[in-house]
């Protein structure tokens, strides 16, 4: 059923989208209706879809009486609203498809919420309704006001949702199950955990149901289009909170804190909302505060947690959905026809409005609790239940309920009076010409809802079985509920009469009351807290950003390096894994170590850029020496060649840069740098010593050595690791190389297209500067070096060498050509563009890696073939060679790219 919500999501059907969107809720209505028989005879409909089995997550749905009631409301009002919406929006309004899709999506989420039997499913649907509500309130997203209101609603209900999640999880952990029905069926427990869970769940319910002092988002949410307000913010979404309370009340009602908390909040909301509603002259805002008030009453009735109050709440829930959605639709019609919903500006609504007026009266009758309306039945039940005094303080609650109901009568009258009577009294003026009546089609959904409210008021017995089924949460034998229009003479009837009279008095003494009511605006509410929190959030995040992200690269690097030094150092100090001092070192290592240290110091302190680069080169060659000593000829070769190339690249770039490093920075900064550097150095030193004496298991590479020949078919274990055992790494690496060299070319060449056009004039220049003997010797050596690089490539699998070294050596050969003839010489030698070479290499390597996959093997699986070639003799060709060739080509391509980036003549680059 949830999935159905997505159907209309992408549709761009304009106004017709709403009609399409009405189908899923209509289907849902019919489905729930067909299940009613089963539900009311005490057999809840269960559904279970496995989701993430490992985590014990499943989509559990359970349709019991309460869920069926809520589902029916959601689905039926959904149909009405979606059929009403096409008449409300002008045909050319933008994004109607989106709106319709969101409404349907919301309906789906709401149905899920009503029927959820798994804590996580409940929470997910809860948040889904918050998010769709956010999107729907902010429907007119070009208006800052709508955005602000939407954000307010999202933040408040979202924060409540998080609290709810916390509470539900606490409760589920305590009960040992995540199924809602099982949790609630278990014996209620006392204790800190249950109390915390209760408060958190209540926080979720109260924010969602706009209880004082969290109510402020609901009036703001009236920025939404009226169909949205009618659906989400009166009939369904705001009911989620009270629905949840109704679910958990039987479980929590016995705890000490539950009733005081819920009843106080509910009563405050009830009275406060009613008083605020009396201040409004915007019809929609009036209804919004009326909703706040009614939600307070619902909170009281469900929260009281006795079967009698819950029955009253059930009746009010149904009645409220019908009359409030109707009234919202009426406001929408008025707004649509006249362009205003302010009672002070409304034009007189004449003949054509007779039908609207009747519908309004029917709804107001139900809202005010006048006999024959469904609201009357609810009110009688409520008074009766509260009068029974089943819990402490019920008298106070009863008084609050009566007071709140008086206010409801008063603002109901105010609504009718303000919309119809008052404008008529003013008569037609120049500013306010009479408005045309609406079409019957736009009124029909509202009329159906209003009439259903009256039908339920006259024959409330229709709901008997469902109301009874909604009480199953209380367990045990609940006597069947009999809803009746006439409860006989008694105290509740007296109270009802009193309510009507009081409401009339309040309405009539409106003029004297207004100054008093105006002071109510000064009452503290959650809005100030929300604003302050929002501002504080902005300020704090700006401060934090300003502090953490201060824009200075040295500071970032310093923080990273310092934490990289201090965290392991701390671990080393705590761990005390000291294996004793290792040996000092052999004689042969002496020169290498000294050279390394000296070169490093040199690179750090010299003031000339070239010298620093040369010192780095020295360190690199010292490394090559170390590799030779350590039994790593591959590394030594690679390091030596790389160092050569690196130095060349440095020279290419640094010939442009100033020769020396200028001004030293302040002493303070230098000290800071040295401190961080020392910390890093010391940590590394200690780490190296500790790690030396701390080997736990046999190295994994023993197995690699053993399997090199049988599995990898190569004798050079390092190369086998690179192209076979860890071939994926290598593939990733050459990809990085490709990206880096593309980046380098892009950075160096951007915006230089103009310079290229004048390149021909200089070709002659370069030719003149050529030296004959360099030219000749390069031509001789070039091919020799190239051949060597190819030999390294082919031999690499069995002897020191491989694609990397080969490619780099070929790069050196290219460098020679560059020295002889500049960039044009390099370009002339290669028939292919550098990026072609690079890409071909990458492609070859990737293809070698993936083709075995297509053939049904594993990635990078190696295949062999023995060929006997003339002259060379028998050659064993393995697919690893193809992979290595890819690496070779990629590296060559990269070197070509580097020359392409920096190789241009300086004169050219300055233009």
């Amino acid at each position, binding site marked *: 059923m949830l999935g159905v919500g997505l159907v209309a999501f992408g549709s761009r059907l304009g106004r017709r989208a709403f009609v399409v969107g009405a189908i899923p809720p209509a289907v849902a209505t019919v489905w729930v209706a067909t299940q009613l028989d089963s539900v009311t005879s005490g057999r809840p409909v269960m559904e279970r879809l496995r989701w993430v089995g490992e985590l014990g997550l499943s989509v559990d749905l359970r349709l019991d009486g309460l869920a069926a009631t809520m589902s029916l409301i959601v689905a039926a009002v959904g149909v009405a609203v979606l059929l009403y919406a096409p008449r409300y929006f002008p045909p050319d309004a933008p994004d109607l498809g989106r709106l319709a899709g969101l409404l349907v999506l919301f309906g789906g989420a709401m149905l899920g919420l009503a029927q959820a039997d798994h804590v996580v499913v409940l929470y997910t649907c809860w948040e889904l309704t918050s998010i769709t509500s956010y999107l729907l309130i902010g429907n007119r997203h070009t208006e800052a006001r709508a955005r602000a209101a939407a954000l*307010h609603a999202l933040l408040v209900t979202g924060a409540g949702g998080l609290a709810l999640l916390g509470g539900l999880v606490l409760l589920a952990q305590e009960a040992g199950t995540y199924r809602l029905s099982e949790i609630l069926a278990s014996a209620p427990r006392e204790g800190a955990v249950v109390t915390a869970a209760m408060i958190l769940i209540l926080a979720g319910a109260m924010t969602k149901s706009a209880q004082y002092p969290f109510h402020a988002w609901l009036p703001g949410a009236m920025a939404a289009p009226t169909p949205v307000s009618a659906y989400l913010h009166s009939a369904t979404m705001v009911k989620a909170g009270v629905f949840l309370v109704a679910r958990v009340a039987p479980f929590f009602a016995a705890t000490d804190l539950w009733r005081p908390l819920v009843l106080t909040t509910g009563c405050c909301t009830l009275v406060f909302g009613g008083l605020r509603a009396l201040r409004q002259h915007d019809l929609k805002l009036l209804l919004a505060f009326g909703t706040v008030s009614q939600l307070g009453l619902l909170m009281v009735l469900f929260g009281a947690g006795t079967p009698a109050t819950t029955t009253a709440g059930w009746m009010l829930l149904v009645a409220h959905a019908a009359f409030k959605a109707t009234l919202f639709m009426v406001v929408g019609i008025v707004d649509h026809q006249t362009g205003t919903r302010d009672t002070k500006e409304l034009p007189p609504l004449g003949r054509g409005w007779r039908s609207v007026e009747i519908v309004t009266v029917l709804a107001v009758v139900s809202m005010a609790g006048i006999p024959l309306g469904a609201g009357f039945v609810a009110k009688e039940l409520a008074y009766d239940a509260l009068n029974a005094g089943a819990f402490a303080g019920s008298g106070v609650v009863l008084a609050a309920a009566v007071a709140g109901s008086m206010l409801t009568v008063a603002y109901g009258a105010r609504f009718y009076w303000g919309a119809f009577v008052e404008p008529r009294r003013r008569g037609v003026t120049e500013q306010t010409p009479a408005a045309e009546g609406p079409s019957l089609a736009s009124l029909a959904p509202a009329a159906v809802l209003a009439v259903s409210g009256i039908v339920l008021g006259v024959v409330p017995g229709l709901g008997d079985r469902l109301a009874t089924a909604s009480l199953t949460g209380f367990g045990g034998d609940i006597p069947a509920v009999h809803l009746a229009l006439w409860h006989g003479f008694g105290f509740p009837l007296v109270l009802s009469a009193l309510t009507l009279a009081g409401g009339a008095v309040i309405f009539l003494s409106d003029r004297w009351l207004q100054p008093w009511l105006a002071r109510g605006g000064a009452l503290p509410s959650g809005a100030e807290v929300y604003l302050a929190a929002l501002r504080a959030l902005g300020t704090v995040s700006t401060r934090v950003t300003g502090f953490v992200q201060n*824009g200075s690269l040295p500071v970032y690097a310093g923080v990273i390096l310092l934490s990289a030094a201090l965290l392991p150092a701390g671990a080393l100090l705590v761990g005390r894994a000291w294996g004793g001092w290792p040996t000092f070192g052999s004689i042969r290592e002496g020169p290498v170590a000294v050279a390394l240290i000296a070169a490093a110091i040199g690179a*750090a302190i010299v003031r000339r850029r070239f010298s620093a680069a040369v010192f780095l080169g020295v360190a690199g060659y010292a490394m090559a020496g170390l590799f030779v000593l350590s039994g790593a000829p591959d590394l030594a070769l690679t390091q030596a060649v790389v160092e050569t190339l690196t130095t060349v690249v440095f020279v290419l770039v640094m010939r442009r*840069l100033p020769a020396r490093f200028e001004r030293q920075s302040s002493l303070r900064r230098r000290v800071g740098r040295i401190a961080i550097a020392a910390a890093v150095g010391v940590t590394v030193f200690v780490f190296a010593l500790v*790690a030396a004496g701390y080997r736990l298991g046999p190295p994994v590479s023993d197995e690699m050595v053993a399997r090199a020949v049988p599995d990898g078919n190569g004798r050079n274990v390092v190369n086998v690791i690179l192209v076979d055992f860890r071939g994926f790494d290598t593939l990733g690496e050459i990809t990085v*190389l490709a990206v880096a060299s593309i980046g380098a070319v892009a950075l160096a060449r951007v915006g230089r297209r103009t310079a290229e056009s004048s390149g021909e004039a200089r070709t002659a220049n370069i030719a003149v500067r050529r030296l004959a003997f360099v030219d000749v010797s390069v031509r001789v050596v070039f091919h020799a070096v190239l051949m060597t690089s190819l030999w390294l490539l082919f031999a690499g699998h069995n002897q020191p060498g491989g694609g990397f070294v080969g490619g780099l050596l070929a790069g050196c050969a290219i460098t020679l050509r560059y020295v002889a003839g500049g960039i044009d010489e390099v370009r002339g030698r290669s028939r292919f563009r550098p990026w072609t070479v690079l890409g071909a290499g990458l492609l070859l390597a990737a293809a070698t890696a993936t083709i075995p996959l297509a053939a049904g093997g594993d990635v990078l699986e190696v295949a062999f073939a023995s060929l006997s070639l003339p002259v060379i003799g028998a050659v064993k060709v393995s697919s690893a060679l193809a992979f290595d060739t890819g690496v070779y080509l990629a590296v060559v391509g990269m070197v070509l790219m580097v020359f392409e980036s920096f190789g241009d003549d300086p004169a050219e680059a300055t233009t």
Partner: protein
Amino acid sequence: MTVMLAAAAATLFGLGTYLILQRKLSRIIIGLGLLTHGANVLLITAGRRGAPPIMGTGEAATFADPLPQALALTAIVITFGVTALLLALGYRSWLLTRDDEVQDDVADRAVARTDVVHDEVVDQAQVIAREEAV
């Protein structure tokens, strides 16, 4: 691992760090180079050291550990790529400013100096709150 090589690695790391904390891109690049060397020293000395790991040339037990070698080889080549990229950055910086100094991010500095936060949504929320308090 020997004390001597540990000292060499530590020096490389320390001085590399010192250079990375500078503002001149050339020095940062050189610092990064030193840091890589230091890391490679650690890598290569972490495993067993011995004869070149080439089958058929001796007893497998005397071989140097090939895995750190493969890792170091990767590191060396990657560093070359990174160096080229960073040099391109320096080159670009030179094209634009005739220098290779890494300057502070102007927008970030502006945020750091901001005192008052103006947020349109917050302002609007306040307007709504005032209207409703009427």
